[in-house]
């Protein structure tokens, strides 16, 4: 049986923050909370991308419980690369 709540560590631009989230919550809410906890308010939400430890981009519309995170997993929330070259 899947747990109802999960503990996650989200590394926001290099700064780790921990949070507990219901399995029914969307990843979008995880991002919102992680940004708030690390006081990252200066960038539009769309400028951020969430990836798992293997570098796979995560769909923020999915629920936490839909992805097989183990409790205590680490996710990486980073700024998208700007236009370069």
């Amino acid at each position, binding site marked *: 049986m899947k747990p109802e709540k999960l503990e996650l560590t989200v*590394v926001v631009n290099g700064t780790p923050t921990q949070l507990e989230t219901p399995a029914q919550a969307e990843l979008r809410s995880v991002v919102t909370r992680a940004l708030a906890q690390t006081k990252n308010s200066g960038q539009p939400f769309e400028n951020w991308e969430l990836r798992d430890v293997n*570098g796979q981009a995560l769909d923020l519309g999915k629920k936490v419980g839909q992805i097989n995170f183990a409790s205590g997993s680490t996710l990486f929330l980073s700024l998208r690369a700007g236009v370069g070259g």
Partner: protein
Amino acid sequence: MTAPGGELLADPAVSRAKFAREIADFRTVESEYRRRGILLLGAEFPTVSLAFAAAQIAPSPMVFGADLDFTNYDLLPPAVTLVNPFTREPYRARELPTDLPRLARVNGKPVRREEVDKLLAKHRGNIPKHLGMLRQRLLVWHDPDQVPFLCLPGVRAYHEHPEHSGDSWLLHRTSGAGRLATIIEHLYRFGVLTVRGYAFDVNIQIGPGPTKQPQAQAQVHLRGLQIVPGGE
């Protein structure tokens, strides 16, 4: 390394404190970075030395090293140089193991990495040219003997380049664009996640053998890494 003109522009004590914060944050999750193939080889102000391995394939190759220079940080953004991970010598353009490719557009629209994966699966590893894929390299050079520079906002060379004089670092300074973790993520995403495997050259010759029966000989040479741009 010093600022343009050789000057120290920021109080070294401030830059040193901010450098220490960047390193402390890295150390907090260092084991997670290591799992992804990102190794901290040294951190002595003003330089951070990193190595990037492609942990997603086996055996895992060491792809490149990177030195970040935090002199005058964060009045100026860090300078980033791709280096040989063993000798720490900067790569010249002709020696680069990867040019940090970015797949900017397919069919005229920005694409995400997962869409690229679907296209690759659909077209058996080769996205047809008619789809209009635009491959952009994030490492820029003008001569093959030149040391390339990473051309992204948040990196010193980008903001010092005359073509980007309208995009000042001060517009990005508080965004996190020049933070160690952000630059690491860009290098990882475009330099490591784009490594999909090894590329081989196979040469097969068919001819009469010693008994005059047809005989096939095959020679296989490792050419390098198979690198596929990863999308937006």
